[in-house]
């Protein structure tokens, strides 16, 4: 079993709960979550539908804020930030990879990769360089000016990976990244993830695929809004 690293956590959740009010009832989508994620972690978060995976992703991704509890990202509390500051944190500290790629259709490959850089205010010239390098890194150096609809699913997901890396984020969040892909393209994507983790990137994958969980060094299982299993918490 993997051992908890001895470094300061990049993400720390303290007593995080998320409640949804549905009419008269309050649904607790997450409750009592205490979680530390360290730099270089390669995590898969698993769980049945309704177990709180999506809520977890939204909170980790700063797309939503916890009802109770604190969320420290790179050492600072982001659980009570303003909307503008949250936007900045999302763009700078986090990289998103989605099941359905979520590329912007009217932009080319290189322009899609540039989107997070644009919102961070990086100059045109610099962002073009970064985007071109990243596109080359994921093997799309020859398709810079193609539109998403001219690419295969696997290629689109590689563009999404390049995009998630463009601001050099602290954590990459992948939501069912291989869910829409055939096993070969999915395998390619997973190999890229392995390489990124080997380079020291922190990756969090939300998945229901047990096979994928086996690739990652740490597995977290959610059930009924609580952490039911965490590799690091297991006795050796």
């Amino acid at each position: 079993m993997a051992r908890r690293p001895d470094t300061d956590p990049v993400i720390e959740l303290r007593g995080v709960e998320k409640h949804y009010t549905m009419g008269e009832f309050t649904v607790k989508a997450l409750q009592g979550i205490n979680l530390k994620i360290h730099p270089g972690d390669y995590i898969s978060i698993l769980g049945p539908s309704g177990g709180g995976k999506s809520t977890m992703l939204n909170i980790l991704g700063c797309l939503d804020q916890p009802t109770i509890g604190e969320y420290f990202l790179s050492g600072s509390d982001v659980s009570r930030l303003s909307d503008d500051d949250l936007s900045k944190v999302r763009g700078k500290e986090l990289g998103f990879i989605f099941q359905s790629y979520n590329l912007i259709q009217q932009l080319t490959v290189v322009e899609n990769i540039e989107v997070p850089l644009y919102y961070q205010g990086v100059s045109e010239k610099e962002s073009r360089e970064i985007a071109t390098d990243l596109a080359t890194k994921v093997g799309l150096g020859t398709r810079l000016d193609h539109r998403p609809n001219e690419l295969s699913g696997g290629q689109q997901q590689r563009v999404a990976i390049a995009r998630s890396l463009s601001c050099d984020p602290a954590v990459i969040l992948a939501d069912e990244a291989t869910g829409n892909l055939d096993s070969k393209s999915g395998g390619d994507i997973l190999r890229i993830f392995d390489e990124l983790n080997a380079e020291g990137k922190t990756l969090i994958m939300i998945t229901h695929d047990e096979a994928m969980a086996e690739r990652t060094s740490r597995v977290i299982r959610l059930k009924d809004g609580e952490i039911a299993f965490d590799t690091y918490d297991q006795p050796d």
Partner: protein
Amino acid sequence: MKLIDFINGASFYRLKRAVILGVKSLWMHKLRSLLTAMGIVFGVCSVIAMLAIGEGASYEAQQQIKDLGSQNVILESVKPTNNTTAGEQERSLILEYGLTFHDIAQIQATVPGVEITVPSREVKDFLWNRSNSVDGVVVGTVSWYPAMRNREVTRGRFFNELEMASSAPVCVLTQSLARQLFPLEEPIGRTVRMRTSYFRVIGVIENDPAVAAAEESLEGSTQSSGEGMEMMVPLSTLKDHFGDVLFKYRSGSFEAVKVELHEVTVRIAKPEQVKPAAFAIQHILERNHKDVDYKMIVPLDLLQRAERTKQIFNIVLGSIAAISLLVGGIGIMNIMLATVTERTREIGIRRALGARKRDIVSQFLIETVMLSGAGGLLGVLLGIAIPVVITHFAEMKTVIEFWAPAMAFSISVMTGVLFGIYPAFRAADMNPVEALRHE
């Protein structure tokens, strides 16, 4: 999300990128963008075209009035239509009516600000150059007539005060009369006969602008009425040759008419005195003339009336413009709301990738403004082209004042801002989580 935050966050670099992005997004749906902008295109184009036509028409009208002299009050003798005193006149056999020298003397003596008066008197009969004759009018007037009525002496000269004093038999012909009487010869130095009197031609004067305008619209009918066929002679010359009472022997009937003056132009010294002076003159004439045998024309009044008409026209046009731009704006807003819904996913993606609300607002607002601005630009081009085409084919005068396209364009841009704000803020206020989940 406040508008002011959005303005503060804007920078040139971001603006440039946002414009490029807007072009790309609009270009993805070329037909839709074109159709959306059409409302603005036609609104702007129709306003500019209508303004140009209206300006042209009122410009011509005002020019005609200005030619009469805005500081003038023109009095004309009119044969009374009312026959209450007809019995007396029948007995005396002489029809006596119109303005008199007595009127002029009174006006000059009592109305403040009266500078010069130009009396004139007319005799209608055939004018002859050898065997060539024209049904025309001899106008007896004074030497300062051309200056007062803004009529240019095109050839030769007008008669002077010496010739007035000596009742010299000299005459000045209007252009159309000169053309009729002397189609092939140089008229100056020749003689024109009327009845038994001969007059030497010393100059040619341009036609009365009002008559010229009438001639233009009724081509070929220049000769019918004798209008514009004027021969001008000194007032004293006219009296010497034709006397006080004018006899008309026409189509078998006999008529004796005594009119001292047919027309008097009163020049007022200062423009602001014109109205009170006209009022005073009206009073004098009302007292001196029982029958309304005169007509008063105040060009300044006409000018002001024309300007008021133009103002009303402009207000109507403005309302049409406002309505059409409102309709265009609503069309744009409708499409932008649909676009925002359609692009919910994109908004979610952008929000996840670090876009603040103000970035989303600026993106959609810029898109809307570009749509309406492009529509406005197209409308301006069409709106300028249409009057040019009309002038060319319909030979109608059109005047495009530079502010009309500029204003129409800026209003169309403002329409974009106004009707873009709501969709843009609606896009920005979407919940990123829900927007990302949107299919």
